[in-house]
């Protein structure tokens, strides 16, 4: 039977679902071309859900619905991260959609459903819940990409994402069925204890490989990364922004739940897989990014490279390593959001500022936003004292502690290659002449939010202790 306490654990999810449904209906009655009601209600929903998540955050780990749903420190922190990032993403998106003239209420509703999917994924404690969350998230994203129906590139991107996503989902499910077949349970905790007690079964690793494909696809690790460049480039920038930020936190949570909570006894196997994925991702991402001229595509490859780094923390197999990864993914989401926000800021109706050349001479057009972009790029390249540096630093430290010095050296090598294309953007902004001196047209909120976004990287970079302490504390309890 479902107890009242269990309903309370799910309160934030229930709330956001109800509100999303309500907003969907309200939106159909709205005549406003700017969709103000829909937009503000969505933002309000995010804020209130965040309040609920933090308000209902449990003192210790609690489970609900027959142990298929978990609420612990990690889930609270990651969900809060998702809300903060989505809040900014919605703000930037509203600006973009308004400017480009195809503002639809469904964008925000789909966004809320995607966020619900992320929340479920983050809190999943059974194979089925993982799958449920993943699909809810993915389906919303497919629809969001395809929403701009006049754009052929967007349709192509949606199609590719959908087909490849379906393949990956299928593999994930297949792997799950193997694990279920061997352990006889869907619940992650039970799976772990069963594997522990029953020992070796080749089918376990077989299933793990398929599950790993699903995780790697969601994160975008090489060789399951192929969708990322095309989807990032093809989607409208506001959707790219959304895809590139908050869902990464959910994907990280998915990896944590499946690998650490469920398949921890197979550490030796998945560690090896993650090492391969990580090296391939860092190499491919950083090297191919260099020859890109489209900044969205460049950022797509940079994402792949960042995922390689993220995996370093996971594969160290210690709570502090997981904390390092969690820190990394949060910082990455912040940076990625800011970078795509800059593209939105520079664009205007009928014009997407998605070529690198559009950043030429930005320091003359707008010294302040050139500075913000400088922070973003330095942070992504991992230059101290910006936040991105600390992400890399903590992850590398964990890898070294885990005994993979050669891996850390490889990572540093590739990040040095990676620094080239980030710094090239800065060079364009500060040392090249602008093609046109058109003034930047953006609303006050947009300017303010983007400034906050950029400065946050600097300020958090100066005092990374608090954020890291949060990551370490929630994960040391979980593990």
């Amino acid at each position, binding site marked *: 039977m479902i107890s009242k306490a269990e309903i309370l654990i799910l309160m934030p999810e229930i709330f956001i679902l109800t509100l999303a*449904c309500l907003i*969907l*209906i309200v939106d*159909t009655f709205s005549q406003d071309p700017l969709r103000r009601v829909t937009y503000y209600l969505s933002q309000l929903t995010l804020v209130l859900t965040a309040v609920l998540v933090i308000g209902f955050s449990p003192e210790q780990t609690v489970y609900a619905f027959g142990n298929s749903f978990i609420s612990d420190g990690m889930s609270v922190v990651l969900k809060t991260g998702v809300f903060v990032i989505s809040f900014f993403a919605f703000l930037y998106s509203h600006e973009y959609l308004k400017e480009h003239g195809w503002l639809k209420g469904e964008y925000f509703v789909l966004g809320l459903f995607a966020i619900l999917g992320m929340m479920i994924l983050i809190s999943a404690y059974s194979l089925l819940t993982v799958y449920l969350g993943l699909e809810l998230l993915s389906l919303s994203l497919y629809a969001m990409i395809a929403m701009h129906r006049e754009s052929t590139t967007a349709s192509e991107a949606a199609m590719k994402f959908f087909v490849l996503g379906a393949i990956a989902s299928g593999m994930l499910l297949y792997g799950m069925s193997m694990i279920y077949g061997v352990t006889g349970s869907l619940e992650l905790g039970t799976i772990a204890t069963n594997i522990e007690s029953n020992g070796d079964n080749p089918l376990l690793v077989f299933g793990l490989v398929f599950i790993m494909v699903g995780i790697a696809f969601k994160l975008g690790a090489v060789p399951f990364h192929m969708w990322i460049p095309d989807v990032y480039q093809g989607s409208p920038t506001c959707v790219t922004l959304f895809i590139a930020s908050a869902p990464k936190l959910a994907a990280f949570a998915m990896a944590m739940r499946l690998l650490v909570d469920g398949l921890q006894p197979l550490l030796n196997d998945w560690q090896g897989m993650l090492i391969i994925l990580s090296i391939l991702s860092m190499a491919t991402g950083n090297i191919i990014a260099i020859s890109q001229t489209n900044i969205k595509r460049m950022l797509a490859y940079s994402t792949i490279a960042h995922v390689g780094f993220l995996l370093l923390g996971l594969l160290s197999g210690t709570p502090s390593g997981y904390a390092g990864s969690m820190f990394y993914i949060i910082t990455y989401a912040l940076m990625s959001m800011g970078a795509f926000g800059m593209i939105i800021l520079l664009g205007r109706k009928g014009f997407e500022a998605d070529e690198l050349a559009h950043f030429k001479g930005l320091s003359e057009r707008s010294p302040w936003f050139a500075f913000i972009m400088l922070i973003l790029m330095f942070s992504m390249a991992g230059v101290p004292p910006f936040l991105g540096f600390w992400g890399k630093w903590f992850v590398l430290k964990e890898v070294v502690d885990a005994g993979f010095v050669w891996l850390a050296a490889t990572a540093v090598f590739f990040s040095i290659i990676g620094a080239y294309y980030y710094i090239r953007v800065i060079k364009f902004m500060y040392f090249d002449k602008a093609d046109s001196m058109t003034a930047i047209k953006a609303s006050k909120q947009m300017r303010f939010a983007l400034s906050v976004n950029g400065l946050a990287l600097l300020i958090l970079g100066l005092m990374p202790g608090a954020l890291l302490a949060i990551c370490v504390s929630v994960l040391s309890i979980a593990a």
Partner: protein
Amino acid sequence: MYLVCLHEVFFNFWIDKGVTNQVLENYFPILLFIVIGLVLGVSMIVIGFGLGKIMGHARPYKAKQSPYECGFEAFENARIKFDVRYYLVAILFIIFDLEIAFLFPWAVVLDEIGMAGFWAMMIFLAVLVVGFIYEWRKGALEWE
């Protein structure tokens, strides 16, 4: 009960023909199905035509006389463009079709799953209603 009686009658009819015929007993339902199908089919056609002749006005035209009356030629190249609204209707249909598919087993076990089961289904229906309102407001139910 009636079917069982019928079965006994046929069974007794066959029984003195030999022991080997007992195998045929397993095929009895199929025979029954064929017979009923034939009877129903023939009677419907007869009744339909008969009633049509008696009560209907006969105004045939080309489309009406084609085998399927759904806007397509019966025999032509399958690779043609046709209206995307068909998909829309098909998708909407599937949604509500599935709803029924859920409702049946639910109704059967409702007395065992109690109030929790009841409310779970109500929530499910409420979500569907939201979808329904949405498609209605969006004009998905209007063909033109």
